[in-house]
């Protein structure tokens, strides 16, 4: 800490340059700020709700379209489209 103060005292130009950098921090545009706020709210809304999913039928991204159709309809896809 002492060394830091000494450095600033020895070089006033450096001190002012540092201050200028700090004040130039880019403020988000209002549109960006609004989008960020909405995204935060969205995450909060999703996180607030928790369900016990263990007894629910699950569909995930590893399933093919035909597998999903068959599981929802309770029939094989060949049966569905041959009707």
């Amino acid at each position, binding site marked *: 800490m002492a060394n830091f103060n000494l450095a600033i005292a020895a070089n006033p130009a450096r001190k002012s340059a540092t201050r200028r950098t700090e004040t130039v921090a880019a403020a988000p545009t209002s549109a960006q700020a609004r989008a960020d706020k909405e995204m935060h709210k969205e995450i909060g809304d999703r996180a607030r709700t928790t369900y*016990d999913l263990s*007894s629910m039928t699950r569909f995930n991204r590893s399933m093919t379209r035909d597998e999903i159709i068959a599981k929802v309809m309770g029939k094989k896809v060949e049966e569905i489209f041959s009707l």
Partner: protein
Amino acid sequence: MSGLFLYMTKINDVYLHPRFEFGTTDKASVTDMPFMTDDEKLRLALWMNGILDGEEHEGLNKPSWTNGGQVIPKTQAYQDNNVWHYHCGPYTSAYANHRMTDSLLSENNQGKSSPEIYHYAKQQDVIIVLGFSRSHLPFPDATSKTNPIRNRSYSWRSAIPPTVHG
């Protein structure tokens, strides 16, 4: 902050609420899966497949507790449980300038509208389909204890210890 959102690029899982999948309600306002036609079930399956594939969808999609950005009175149950609805079609009106709903099922009030909707709850990168309405007007009352959508949205929260869901 961008890192925080990386996991939200797609919805990873879609669940069917058991009281929807095996339910006994057969009304225009709430129709459970055993009473849906093959066409309705096929449409549901393709919507779920599209969500998991990260596709956009043409229907209107919104939270069930707001209208035009304003909170609808007496819809606290929907807000508490993050219940949304998607207008699944079939779409009978002509739409020249509709907007697509993105793959995260974000709010889109410029999508195509239909009497038929899916009710679902969002949880992180998961959605739970709570029900189907062939005709959603009047909208199922969030304060009514006989509204299956309201009860389904609460039932799984009350079934687990408070410490789990805070």
